[in-house]
């Protein structure tokens, strides 16, 4: 058995308690171990991506119990990509949290961060539906702590809403799993796929209820309209580096939809075939449109970015809902892009918020205004999907894949118009924040002789170099994704082909049964 598969779960699971129990009073050591943990995760993820790129599906049977009786972790190309994306995202964010001093503003930031990584990686790797629920809970309970990190009245209130919404989502998840177990008698995803296909058509009422409930649960996670209400106020009030990490959490929902509705309730299954086609595509299009309107109307920088995340989830889910290998490949490319872009925007939002507050309203000029404006501009271009960055390539691929669909003109119209609205919204916010603040009425009083430039105070971050370096690392990530779009799309095509041939996955997991 390949023990590398469990390493992304075990490593943070060791680092986090070590930080809590041994290093509780040593912030410097906590930082060193947390960064080392993220570096280790990056190394493990690189190994896993290399192993998965051969196209073999490997399994890891916990406690050596054969599937479907024990819990299995499964490494295929999609899981490897998601773990890799998590690791790539985690490193700049943890460095930014150190550089901006966010990890000093409350207790246990690094421990919770590692627990969050453990939950996310576990959710991507598991091959068991109930285990997916457990890893969801692990990542959620860590996110509750991170979301309220630093305290403050509004943040705590937003935290209560966030926990309530997710607790209800978890309960719904349990109802869905219970229904599926009652119908099929198993919770292993590969075994579910086999059993579901064998159920006679007239007995599928409960199965369809279970499938619809499961889709609802994952839609809550992925912030699909009308289940997106938790996202704007949670993300806008969370510490912004944490919101940047949460960029991967909505993708957990998208991943779960993709996994379950290609493997268990595949496109060929008659009982649930209408579910995705009839509901997912319209919901994704409305999500995209409403997200764009939210970007246009936002009065706070956190909300602006949060609605930006909703538009990117809309585009991603449009690609997923088309349910063809080409569209899925395009969607996966767009997902890599949008995760990095959303994280970049939230970190820029934090830089702005530290200097002049969160309101999108002309106030006073800020330190390093030009540099931050440049970073905001790059992030806005990436989010809106303008050339030359990868957002453009991603949206182009999604639209190209939508040509096969009978409703392609609706998809095209919504994507193009919402991109335009996002451009207007980001331009409005950017000019209010960066340009109007320099107008005469808002400018600071000139010094007596009229020539001395007022010295600006030092940047609010304790280590501004590290903070900016980690933001630039994300920009570099976007640039690399643009430059290496060819190899990246080849890899995502491999993923899509693997996803739409679920029999290999089933054979890989259930091999013990035939022996």
């Amino acid at each position: 058995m390949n023990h590398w598969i469990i390493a992304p779960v075990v490593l943070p699971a060791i680092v986090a308690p070590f930080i809590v129990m041994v290093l509780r009073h040593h912030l410097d050591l906590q930082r060193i171990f947390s960064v080392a943990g993220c570096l280790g995760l990056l190394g493990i993820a690189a190994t896993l991506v290399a192993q998965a790129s051969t196209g073999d599906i490997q399994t890891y049977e916990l406690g050596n119990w054969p599937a479907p009786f024990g819990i299995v972790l499964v490494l295929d190309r999609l899981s490897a990509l998601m773990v890799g994306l998590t690791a790539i995202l985690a490193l700049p964010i943890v460095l930014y949290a150190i550089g901006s001093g966010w990890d000093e503003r409350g207790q246990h930031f690094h421990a919770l961060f590692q627990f969050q990584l453990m939950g996310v990686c576990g959710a991507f790797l598991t091959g068991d539906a109930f285990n997916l629920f457990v890893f969801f809970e692990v990542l959620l309970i860590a996110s509750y702590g991170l979301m309220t990190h630093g305290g403050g009245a509004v943040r705590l209130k937003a935290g209560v809403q966030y926990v309530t919404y997710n607790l209800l989502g978890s309960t719904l998840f349990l109802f869905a799993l219970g229904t599926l177990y009652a119908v099929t008698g198993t919770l292993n995803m590969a075994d579910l796929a086999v059993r579901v296909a064998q159920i006679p058509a007239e007995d599928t009422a409960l199965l369809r209820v279970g499938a619809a409930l499961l889709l609802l649960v994952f839609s809550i996670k992925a912030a699909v309209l009308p289940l997106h209400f938790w996202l704007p106020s949670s993300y806008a009030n969370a510490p912004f580096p944490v919101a940047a990490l949460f960029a991967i959490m909505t993708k957990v929902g998208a991943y779960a939809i993709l996994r379950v509705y290609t493997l268990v309730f595949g496109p060929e299954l008659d009982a649930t075939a209408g579910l995705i086609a009839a509901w997912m595509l319209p919901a994704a299009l409305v999500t995209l449109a409403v997200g764009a309107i939210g970007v246009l109307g936002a009065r706070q920088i956190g909300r602006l970015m949060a609605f930006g995340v909703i538009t990117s989830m809309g585009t991603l889910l449009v690609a997923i809902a088309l349910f063809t290998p080409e569209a899925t490949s395009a969607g996966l490319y767009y997902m890599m892009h949008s995760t990095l872009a959303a994280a970049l925007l939230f970190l820029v939002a934090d830089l702005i918020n530290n200097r002049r507050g969160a309101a999108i309203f002309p106030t006073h000029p800020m330190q390093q205004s030009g540099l931050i404006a440049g970073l905001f501009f790059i992030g806005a271009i990436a989010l809106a999907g303008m050339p030359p960055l990868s957002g453009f390539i991603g949206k182009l691929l999604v639209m190209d894949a939508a040509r096969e669909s009978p409703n392609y003109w609706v998809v095209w119209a919504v994507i193009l118009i919402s991109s335009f609205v996002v451009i207007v919204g980001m331009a409005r916010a950017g000019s209010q924040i960066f340009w109007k603040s320099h107008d005469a009425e808002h400018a600071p009083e000139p010094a007596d002789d009229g020539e001395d430039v007022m010295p600006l105070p030092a940047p609010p971050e304790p280590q501004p170099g590290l903070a900016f370096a980690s933001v630039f690392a994300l920009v570099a990530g976007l640039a690399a994704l643009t430059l290496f779009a060819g190899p990246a799309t080849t890899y995502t095509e491999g993923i899509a082909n693997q996803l739409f041939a679920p029999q290999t996955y089933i054979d890989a997991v259930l091999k013990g049964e035939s022996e």
Partner: protein
Amino acid sequence: MEFLLASAVGVMTAAGIFLILRRRTFPVILGLSLVTYAVNAFLFATGRLALNAPPVLNKYEDVAYTDPLPQALVLTAIVISFGMTAVIVMIALSAYLTTKNDHIDISVDKKTGEER
């Protein structure tokens, strides 16, 4: 038996959802607990209801047994929902103590758009 369990799950879920839609945190948390109790009872029933049957196989004689997996699932679900309820009570309590009110909504200043 089936009717009793089904109606218990239904009533608890309905009451829980009613309470979750209230505007103060205390009834909302009560509602969440009720819904989690309902789902625990529901999970227990997914292995079919059996009376006087232990969830273990007996290799010496042929006796009836009940499906042990839902019982394990319920145990996990109970532990998780209990822990989550404790977390939300703590967060709600600190929100109440810092803002001096326990409304679940965030009020927004109409003029400045500021939240408080």
